């Protein structure tokens, strides 16, 4: 039985674990039908031309974790931003770990999707927002059908989340192969502000496939800074589907640091629903081996006087492959739009590949839209220059790569996170020089 059939037939078993009378269950039942009809995407679809899921889908994944697994914080500390006080929503093999988490209901809600789905208190928010912007494609529908657990964050009007929130998904590998489908909902009301750091981490060599869906709503003048750290091992694959709806004068930024994993696909979608909105999409990808990272972005400008800024840097070594597909749609009404997109890549090996494709659909006539794409190698003259000043070849290469990605790193607003990412990069590049450029 293929994975698709297994998933569809598992839905009945899944229904035994949830309240089928809840209104949300109609959404799930509808979604499993959509998945049954559409299935997994194939390379025949334009948006998946350069990313094949075939190899990832052939494993016999367990759909539901059999038991609860516990971990000690000291063993997994390194996957957290531990030198900073944060809220934490932590999952082990898809199940909430209260032991490792630190949630709150004081003025803001930082808790679990499962409790938000089952308590009446949260019903108005769930009714208003749940599954309202998630796309109805096969993968997202699959997640919706099995939606049960994940992070639930609700910041009411005029509130500043008093500390950043870490969402961490750990997989222990106690199952031989495991599929995880976290479902997150983040609602930030007028004038409110939140910073979120998300990380997926597999702790063993057993295959893990995560199909995650996150819906983020940013109301008027709200600010959301979202950081995704993707530094998983070579047996873990991630399909991240993130949908962000912004109201007037809100600012939302998503930084994606893709440093590792088997196959990583980021479907990042921004929908602008008011004037004066700023949407920021930044990414740094540094991969090697046979790793594959695909950034598929969409920014839909539907109102006048808005901006979007996309800056994706990629460094690919050995046989790594990268994809950048950035789509910008500017509706006819969306005059005075400023939409910028840039994708710069360095290939360190003859066998590394990047496919970069900007897609601009502009229907308004008074806009500023630009896109630029570069693919190059490290500058030999710059390397010699640095080496002639006593900087070793490996360090010189690392410094050039770091400098290449620097403007994206500079825009990280949490200093401890910036330091951590600098360290991750230094580790990846195998150098021991402090980058504090």
């Amino acid at each position: 039985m293929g994975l698709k059939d297994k998933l569809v037939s598992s839905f009945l078993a899944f229904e035994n674990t949830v309240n089928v009378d809840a209104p949300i269950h109609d959404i799930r039942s509808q979604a499993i039908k959509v998945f049954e009809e559409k299935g997994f995407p194939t390379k025949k679809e334009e948006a998946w031309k350069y990313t094949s899921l075939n190899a990832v889908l052939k494993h016999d994944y367990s759909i539901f974790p059999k038991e609860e697994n516990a971990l000690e914080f000291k063993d997994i500390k390194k996957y957290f931003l531990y030198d900073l006080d944060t809220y934490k929503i932590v999952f082990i093999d898809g199940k909430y770990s209260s032991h490792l988490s630190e949630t709150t209901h004081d003025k803001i809600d930082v808790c679990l999707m499962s409790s938000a789905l089952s308590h009446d208190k949260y019903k108005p928010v769930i009714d208003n927002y749940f599954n309202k912007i998630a796309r109805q494609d096969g993968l997202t529908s699959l997640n919706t059908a099995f939606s049960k657990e994940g992070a639930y964050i609700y910041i009411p009007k005029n509130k500043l989340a008093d500390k950043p929130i870490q969402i961490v998904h750990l997989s222990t590998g106690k199952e031989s192969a495991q599929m995880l489908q976290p479902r997150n909902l983040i609602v930030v009301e007028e004038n409110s502000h939140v910073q979120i750091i998300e990380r997926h981490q597999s702790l063993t060599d057993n295959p893990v496939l995560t199909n995650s869906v996150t819906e983020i709503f940013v109301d008027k003048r709200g600010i959301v800074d979202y950081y995704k750290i993707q530094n998983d091992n070579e047996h873990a694959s991630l399909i991240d589907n993130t949908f962000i709806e912004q109201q007037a004068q809100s600012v939302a930024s998503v930084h994606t640091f893709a440093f590792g994993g088997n196959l990583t696909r980021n479907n990042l979608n921004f929908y602008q629903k008011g004037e004066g909105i700023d949407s920021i999409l930044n990414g740094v990808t540094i991969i090697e081996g046979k790793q594959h990272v695909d950034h598929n972005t969409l920014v839909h400008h539907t109102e006048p006087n808005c901006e979007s800024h996309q800056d994706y840097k990629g460094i690919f070594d050995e046989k790594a492959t990268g994809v950048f597909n950035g789509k910008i749609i500017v509706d006819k009404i969306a005059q005075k739009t400023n939409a910028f997109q840039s994708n710069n890549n360095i290939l360190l090996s003859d066998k590394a590949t990047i496919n970069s494709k900007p897609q601009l659909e502009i229907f308004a006539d008074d806009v500023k839209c630009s896109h630029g794409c570069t693919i190059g190698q490290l500058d030999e003259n710059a390397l010699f220059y640095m080496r002639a000043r006593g900087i070793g070849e490996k360090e010189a290469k690392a410094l050039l790569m770091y400098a290449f990605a620097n403007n994206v790193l500079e825009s990280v607003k949490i200093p401890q996170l910036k330091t951590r990412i600098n360290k991750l990069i230094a580790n990846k590049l195998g150098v021991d020089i402090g980058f504090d450029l």
Partner: protein
Amino acid sequence: MLEIKDLHASVEGKEILKGLNLKVNAGEIHAVMGPNGAGKSTLANIVAGKEDYEVTKGEILLEGEDIEELAPEERAHKGVFMSFQYPVEIPGVTVTNFMKTAINETRKAQGLEEMPAKDMLKKIREKSELLEIDRKFLSRSLNEGFSGGEKKRNEIFQMAMMEPKLAILDETDSGLDIDALRIVANGVNRLKSEDNAIVVITHYQRLLDHIVPDYVHVLYDGKIVKSGTKELALELEEKGYDWIKEEINA
């Protein structure tokens, strides 16, 4: 300090240096002059360790040790410095951090501790004052958007920071106006000591009015064809290179 013996070198199969000999002692300033295409920059780059050149014959000795097989960074660690004719722009790396990295990597290679931040800042302040470099300049990306003169001044600032035993200044005067020339020359003169040596590679005599060489060599067609004192530079300035060519070809 530096001794080059019968050096033959080629790039992409074309022989550029054809048996070059040069001996520079500690405490000396040598000028290497010559017409375009004589091999001046090749000489500088080969001593610094650029890998595009193939040394087919001869030796390059630094304090008696053959450095021909060493990587550029290893030569730097031993005290070789080249001021680039065309300094490379490195966006995203500030002047200060580039220098910190260069000095600490060099110290590491020499088995020393990293320089304490306080000492580093003090040194940067001193040396930037010597080269009349504005503090703001130091937090800009290395060479990015610098004028020709700023780039050259920055090269000598780096020389001041690195304190090399052997400095090779490749066409450091090109692109400098008269004020910048004076600042750069003053910087170089202040760095001069009994323990180091400087090789000034130049096409024109004007830099030598400010950095006065002990010896002047004429490089022509891959060889040193004439050596003399600073008066030779004046003669070249006056008469050009044609008389040398005639002398050789006669």
